[in-house]
């Protein structure tokens, strides 16, 4: 599950918004709250208490983190960062079943939307296309593209279900498109399958072999029950097969597909891709953009190869086909390559280490790590910098920030700069530091006066304030 605190916050704000506006459509949320008895447990003395969700949530998160880091340690960290993903939505009769509220289809659409946003956030250089299965036939809803809004708009406009679903037709359809993708791209299919049957025109095993040959990684998330053919498909092509238990589980499962999968050398051939880094068009210049064929003022980027103008990045130049990105798009993917180590849990008894005895607050957010009863609460320590962090910061640091605030401070010694610093420079440094210290003392002194000449200090200096 990659939904971060930021996402939670977004939801929270959504809820806030909803309070003033329409309350319809939020029915699903209410159902989850109806099972309030499940959030209670009995304590030693037989009293009912709410379950300590925080500790449980954190334990869950740590398990996930450990499994992730174990997977990435086993081989060299190489991630498939340039992905071409087809999302196949099953809109057959089975999608109207109401075991998910209000229906499977609505739940799939809602979570697909969240997934698409999360996907582009994590994989800015990748592309998505949407395919639907309806009446036994697969249709392209959108072509491969990098704009989340256009996909979501198309998805929400076409939500109706009928007929049977056909796994083979969907795979054939997707294969036709994915086969043309350049070899450096990772070809993936994510099938959100509601039905328990597949109505196929031919031998599906042949299609599966065809996908395997084209190195298309197929993953399936089922909404009803496990099916042999889906499992077989995922096993053969190296994908993930999972079946959702309920809506929140489905959300976890679909968001698991957002971070880039480990790159397997045979799946995509490493290659150098030519890309352009366009500059912003001059402010106030008027020109016709090549993507919408409209004249626009200001804002826009100019392709460095053919000088055509495009409206947004990342994209492919419509004229010369050059991939256009900006450096932040590349930087957004770097954290996948330099993951931070999971933090170690600190047992309350380990507080005897002398150098850490004094640290009573979380290094990140300054929250007290001591409970009201002067009992130290559960916290974690970074293996790198040995600083203590509270559980919330732990999750935030690993899921959204991808930086350890403490390790920034102690680590990152740049050898090159180190060596470039010769002895004279080092001597200078000490002299400089002395000066600053002195200046400090002067300043303190200066602040002590009752009425200094500095105009900004009148407020501070007047005795009656």
């Amino acid at each position: 599950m990659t939904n971060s605190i930021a996402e939670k916050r977004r939801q929270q704000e959504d809820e806030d918004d909803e309070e003033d506006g329409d309350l319809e459509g939020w029915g699903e949320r209410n159902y989850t709250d109806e099972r309030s008895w499940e959030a209670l447990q009995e304590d030693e003395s037989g009293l009912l208490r709410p379950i300590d969700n925080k500790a449980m949530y954190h334990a869950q998160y740590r398990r996930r983190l450990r499994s992730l880091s174990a997977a990435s340690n086993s081989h060299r960290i190489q991630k498939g960062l340039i992905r071409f993903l087809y999302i196949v939505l099953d809109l057959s009769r089975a999608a109207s079943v109401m075991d998910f509220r209000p229906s499977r289809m609505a739940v799939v659409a809602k979570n697909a939307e969240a997934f698409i946003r999360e996907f582009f956030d994590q994989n800015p250089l990748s592309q998505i296309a949407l395919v639907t299965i309806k009446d036994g036939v697969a249709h392209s809803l959108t072509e491969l593209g990098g704009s989340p809004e256009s996909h979501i708009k198309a998805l929400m406009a076409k939500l109706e279900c009928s007929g049977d679903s056909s796994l083979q037709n969907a795979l054939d359809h997707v294969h036709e498109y994915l086969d043309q993708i350049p070899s450096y791209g990772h070809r993936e299919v994510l099938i959100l399958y509601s039905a328990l049957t597949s109505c196929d025109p031919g031998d599906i095993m042949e299609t599966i072999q065809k996908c395997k040959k084209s190195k298309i990684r197929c993953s399936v998330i089922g909404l009803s029950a496990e099916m042999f053919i889906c499992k077989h498909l995922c096993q053969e092509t190296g994908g993930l097969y999972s079946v959702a238990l309920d809506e929140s589980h489905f959300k976890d499962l679909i968001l698991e597909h957002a971070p880039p999968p480990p790159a397997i050398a045979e799946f995509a051939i490493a290659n150098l891709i030519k890309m352009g880094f366009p500059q912003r068009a001059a402010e106030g210049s008027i020109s016709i953009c090549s993507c919408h064929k409209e004249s626009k003022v200001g804002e826009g980027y100019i392709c460095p190869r053919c000088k055509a103008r495009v409206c947004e990045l990342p994209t492919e130049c419509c004229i010369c086909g050059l991939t256009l990105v900006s450096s932040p798009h590349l930087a957004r993917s770097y954290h996948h390559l330099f993951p931070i180590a999971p933090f170690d849990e600190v047992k309350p008894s380990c507080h005897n280490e002398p150098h850490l005895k004094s640290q009573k607050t979380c290094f990140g957010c300054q929250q007290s790590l001591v409970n009201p009863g002067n009992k130290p609460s559960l916290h974690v320590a970074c293996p790198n910098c040995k600083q203590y962090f509270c559980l919330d910061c732990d999750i935030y640091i690993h899921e959204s920030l991808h930086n350890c605030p403490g390790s920034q401070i102690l680590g990152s010694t740049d050898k090159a700069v180190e060596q470039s610093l010769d002895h004279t420079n080092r001597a200078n440094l000490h002299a400089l530091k002395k000066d600053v210290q002195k200046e400090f003392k002067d300043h303190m002194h200066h602040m002590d006066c009752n009425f200094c000449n500095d105009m900004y200090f009148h407020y501070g200096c007047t005795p009656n304030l």
Partner: protein
Amino acid sequence: MTSVPSKRYSDDVSLVVVLLDTNPFFWTASSSLSFSQFLSHVLAFVNSILLLNQLNQVVVIATGYNTCDYIYDSSMDASQSSEKGRMPSVYSNLLQKLEEFMIKDEKLGKEQSQRAIASSLLSGSLSMALCYIQRVFRSGPLHPQPRILCLQGSSDGPEQYVAVMNAIFSAQRSMVPIDSCYVGANNSAFLQQASYITGGVYVKPQHLDGLFQYLTTVFATDLHSRSFIRLPRPAGVDFRASCFCHKTTIDMGYICSVCLSIFCKHHKKCSTCGSVFGQAQSDTSSASDHKRKAPET
């Protein structure tokens, strides 16, 4: 924050996390503005933010060259009155902590004597500020509107690039604008990008004597009021990349498909991740791409 649950937060209440650059190598070298002058501008500014709204909150984090630390949190010492009736506690607490911090910073610098020194640890203090802001978000639906203000003088440390970018994207995701006021000689590419991506304001004051005026006119306005004000516009943020092999800024380049390293010309092997590349198929592939795309457009 927890002490005032009954207070009602409206959209004009701000939490300003000020990142104060204390890099001694910059401040002793800067001729136009001494550190004490700088501090006096900043302290007055901190005070004026606290005066604008009684619920406003200011946190100051010192960015040293070896470490970063919280040196002031207005939510902590709101109850304390001024010592000796002379100086408000804002000043005395902050200055005392700042001095302790400088001594600690120097000590750490001696311990690991040969560190990259030219730059401050912007990535560390940004990460800390974001952790603090997340805590404010967690405190409940009623919280002040947070923003980060970087008061930076020293130049960018290239080794912090990935970390700073991570912090910027995290701020963007939680919709926290990063404002920056750069008092150094050249423009700071990190801060320009940070402000541009997160929707903050980047200012490089022309006259450092009037720093206080720059700070109050540009950075004192809360996020809600900003929509009514004409703030300095970002001028020419350069989003071009520089190649890993020669560090030159390029318009067009080659990207390793595995690790996204940037090179200015075709290599046989990626120097970052070690992948061996096939032939330069970039041009042919983009041409075929184009053919594939052509019918749709």
